């Protein structure tokens, strides 16, 4: 919200002071040209109060409409029109008040030009001051907005990094390798290779980039294999993708957090055997992927509020496709299903 130039005690005091001084100067000048003291002061008060009102009008007008281009023409024309109007009103009123006095009437008629110039200068000065004030305010606002936008970008970046690194997965996997190193060194070595391939794939990927479903699934398979080493027979996966669907596109690292989520609630938070399924199909030219996992109905009650942590995926889909209807979730008989729809039009004509 912009602060109005006319608000604030300092402005009011200066404004009032200025017009009082100007009333005295005005009265004295008119008096020195031969008008009576009463006539001088009446005229000065009347003219200057009207002129002050005109200045306030200009200042308020600038608050709501700040001319960007042709602002000098705008000031000039507004100044000319308002001062002409002001001159007409004051002259008419003064004639009504003191019309009987011939000498005063002559003085009034002879001073029209100087009155007009003074009125124009006053109104013009007020307009220039207002423009400067509001332009400065606008700039400050713009700077603030820019800073906020920069901060948000930075936060998003940090969030992205945190998302990618998944420290717990990494440390737990290293712990499994450490355990295998003693008893089954061959398996430990194999797991080190899987983990490095997975990490390299994650670091290399750019979230702005689109991958084919085949490439993304290959990356996911590395992740799921590592979890299979950690949890042994408990984890089973069923990945069903038709050959023609494999060549469809999907934003990089979009599927990964959904599957991580399925693993978190399906595997980390339950006991017993777990089946994670990933099914992909082409539907009306779009790629539709369903990921399902079992969940513990008893303990998952309290996690309901967090919406199974899918809010960031929803957000990303919105940023990429400007649509809110691409992510659906459902729960049925202890199975939680996440369905993603990926429009393909952005990737058409993009075939290698």
């Amino acid at each position, binding site marked *: 919200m912009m602060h109005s130039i006319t608000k604030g005690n300092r402005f009011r005091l200066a404004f009032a002071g200025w017009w009082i001084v100007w009333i005295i100067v005005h009265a004295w000048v008119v008096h020195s040209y031969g008008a009576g003291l009463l006539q001088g002061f009446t005229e000065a008060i009347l003219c200057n109060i009207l002129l002050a009102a005109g200045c306030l009008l200009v200042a308020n007008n600038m608050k709501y409409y700040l001319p960007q281009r042709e602002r000098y023409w705008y000031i000039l024309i507004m100044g000319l029109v308002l001062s002409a109007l002001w001159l007409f009103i004051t002259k008419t009123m003064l004639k009504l008040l003191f019309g009987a006095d011939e000498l005063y009437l002559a003085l009034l008629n002879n001073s029209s030009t100087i009155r007009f110039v003074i009125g124009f200068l006053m109104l013009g000065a007020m307009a220039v001051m207002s423009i400067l004030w509001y332009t400065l305010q606008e700039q400050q606002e713009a700077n603030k907005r820019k800073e906020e936008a920069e901060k948000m970008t930075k936060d998003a970046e940090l969030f992205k990094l945190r998302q990618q690194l998944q420290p717990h997965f990494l*440390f737990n996997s290293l*712990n499994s390798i450490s355990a295998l190193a003693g008893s089954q060194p061959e398996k430990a070595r194999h797991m080190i290779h899987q983990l490095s391939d997975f990490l390299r794939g994650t670091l290399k990927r750019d979230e702005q980039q689109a991958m084919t479903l085949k490439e993304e699934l290959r990356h996911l398979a590395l992740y799921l294999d590592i979890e299979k080493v950690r949890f042994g027979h408990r984890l089973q996966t069923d990945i069903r993708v038709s050959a023609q669907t494999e060549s469809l596109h999907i934003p990089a690292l979009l599927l990964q957090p959904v599957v991580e989520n399925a693993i978190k609630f399906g595997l980390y938070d339950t006991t017993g055997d777990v089946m994670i399924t990933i099914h992909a199909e082409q539907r009306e030219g779009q790629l539709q992927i369903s990921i399902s996992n079992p969940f*513990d109905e008893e303990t998952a009650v309290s996690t309901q509020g967090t919406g199974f942590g899918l809010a960031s995926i929803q957000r990303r889909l919105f940023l990429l496709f400007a649509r809110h209807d691409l992510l659906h979730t459902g729960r049925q008989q202890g199975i939680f299903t996440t369905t993603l729809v990926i429009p393909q039009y952005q990737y058409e004509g993009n075939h290698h």
Partner: protein
Amino acid sequence: MKAIIIDDESLARGIVREYLQQYPDIDIVQECADGFEGVKAIQQHQPDLVFLDIQMPKITGFEMLELIEQPPAVIFTTAFEEYAIRAFESHAVDYLLKPFSKERFDKAIQKWRQQNPQEQREHTRQLINAPGLTPHHPGRIVLKDNGKIKIIPAAGIHYLEAADDYVKIVTAEGYFLKNKTMAYFEQALDPQNFVRIHRSYLINIQLISRIEPYEKDSYLAVLSVGMKLPVSKSGYVRLKQVLGI
């Protein structure tokens, strides 16, 4: 000496087992894959030492400890650094960050041997009573009801009432008792949802339907489930702050 290993990953249990081979006097009496099994095993065997993971299915390692009346000495093994560094510096026997080396493990065993059992029990007791330091779900309370483990989601709690050494947790299903202080719950539950309106009452503000004046400087909070609870002068100030009035 009896030990129990509680971890949901068999490989993680394996490494503790392997490191323990060097200590013939420490006998692994049971291995458990989740907190429910853990509670049973600890009560059955009364072990001298427990190796405990924090993030596990159903209930966390901390929630599990809260359910045991005489908690044994505990060495935590976890990949979650943020959980408890400070707590373990002072209270637990030790805190092993996965993956940990044999040397680090040996140090933890040494530390355990140097403490007498009385001291250990005191440490564990302090540890689980220190709110804010323990990782927990602010969204739920885990307790034992007639020998069965019960998980109460915070949204289902009407209010908590001080009752001597216990706290009465009142829900739609009736009330449950837990051996904790009001101050503990005040910190453990989400302060945006639970407000200490009185020395003896901590209420779920989602259920307040209106607040009536009662006597000088005191008020009554009327819950939508049909109860009236006293609000003290300072409780009223806290309530106004959270409700933003």
